[in-house]
């Protein structure tokens, strides 16, 4: 079972806040997802190695060779605000 506190804690980690009505909505949605996972858990996987990836590259590496980066203008193209070539956002201090 998922509690109201669980939802608030997850919201906090995501730096989001919700009112009570929204919170209750999430409880129902989370439960649906968790129930699905419960179903999957019923499968017996005791003898099965975990699979992280199905596409095996033969050579997963890049060489240590510099190639041209994007022009600064291109990098900043989609941002709402920029200043002196930086992305500008409201002040956030960790």
């Amino acid at each position: 079972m998922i509690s109201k506190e669980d939802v608030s804690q997850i919201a906090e980690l995501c730096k989001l806040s919700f009112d009570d009505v929204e919170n209750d909505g999430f409880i129902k949605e989370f439960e649906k997802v968790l129930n699905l996972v419960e179903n999957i858990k019923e499968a017996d996987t005791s003898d099965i190695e975990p699979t992280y990836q199905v596409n095996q590259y033969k050579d997963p590496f890049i060489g240590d060779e510099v190639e041209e980066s994007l022009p600064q203008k291109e990098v900043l193209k989609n941002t709402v605000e920029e200043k002196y070539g930086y992305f500008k956002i409201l002040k956030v201090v960790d």
Partner: protein
Amino acid sequence: MRYKTIIGLEIHVELMTDTKIFCNCTNEFGGEANSHCCPVCLGLPGAIPRLNKRVLEYAIKAGTAFNTHISNHIKMDRKNYFYADLTKGFQTSQNEIPICSEGYIEIELEEGTKKVHLQRIHIEEDTGKSIHTENDETLLDYNRAGVPLIEIVSKPEMNSAEEARLFLENLRATLKYIEVSDCKMEEGSLRCDVNINVVDSETGQKTRISEIKNLNSFRSVVKSIEYEEERHIDLLKKGENTDKETRRWDEVKAETVLMRGKAGASDYRFAVEGDIPPFILEDTFINEIQNNMPELPHEKKERFISQYDLSSYDAGVLTQSRDLAAFFEDTVKNINDTKLVSNWIMGDVLRRLNEEDLEIDSLKFGAKALADLISLVKDGKINNNTGKKVLRDMFDTGKDPNTIVKEQGLIQISDEGELEGMIDTVLDENEQSIIDFKNGKDRAVGFLIGQIMKKSRGKANPQVVNKLLLEKLKER
């Protein structure tokens, strides 16, 4: 000692690869903001990272130098957290299987050698850089996003600020020796977090761990440990405790300041990095690196002791950096007198460099020039004091010592006839000193030698002057 301090260190080191860890953008420090970026390091949708193999090479080199176990199973994980300097909302790192585990670094204490064990070394990407302005803005530059890092985590086995400093010095020297990082703390290529708490050995009480983040000089590591040590002991004395919390060092106030307490603790929800498939590294790749390790600081020190017949202390100083050790060896190649060379380098050369806070590679003259200077002194062409003066000129102008000696007419006067003339003049001018000498005042000799040296403008051969003066004094 009633209170025992327990210190563990986490060190982030930027690697000197040419490119970033998952893309071909340059790994050059600085540059115009957001000019070293591409879809991969900006975390744009659909961009697929691929690992730079040299990052593995450098991590294995470091792991080998620090005696760790190397894993041939490479797997990357996503460390999730929300912060604007992370473009993707997660940092690609290694959680479950670090590339290096266990291992140790040795530090020399008065009571002997201490092994400080390592927990792990793993590879990960650096984050972007944020600048907070006065106008409530945060400005973001992602040139550093995706710069390759190794994170070195020690076990909590250090017990004083001094031990932590020695650990870091050994770590930095080694990483520079094996050329995986320039370890420039002022440019952030070596950054240190400290975990510290204190145990009361009488009551068994202990404080909770404080983590001091992002220290960027050895001095601030030492100062912040000393500060926290005292804070924790005071708490224990009062029967109080501290929360497990994160703090930062305030250089101006010289104190640590709370950043976030327990409530803000992160939950990183590690997940497998699906874009980089786990793989097994060939043994040949690892063996090749391990069989071609450069000489490490302690190995070079041992070799210096046996090959050049130096004391352990002298060998330690001369091998503290690879460049300094190379300078010593190059000088010895040009003048085969290791004792003289080590005296000159450890004396006047290092003193001047320390005074000006410079490294050996900023000298304006080379090893050959220093060897020439030492030869001039050794062969008696100039005396020792003149040699020091010529060295000062070499520091300032980078001129060749033979040129300086010629230009300034500094060749030592050893000719007895010429010196006798000077000595007679000085004696004639200083009757009282002769009387003092006859009355057994030895200081008079020193004074007279000083006067003669002055008359020769510092060029007289002091040994010859000494001998002639004593003869003349007896005659008078």
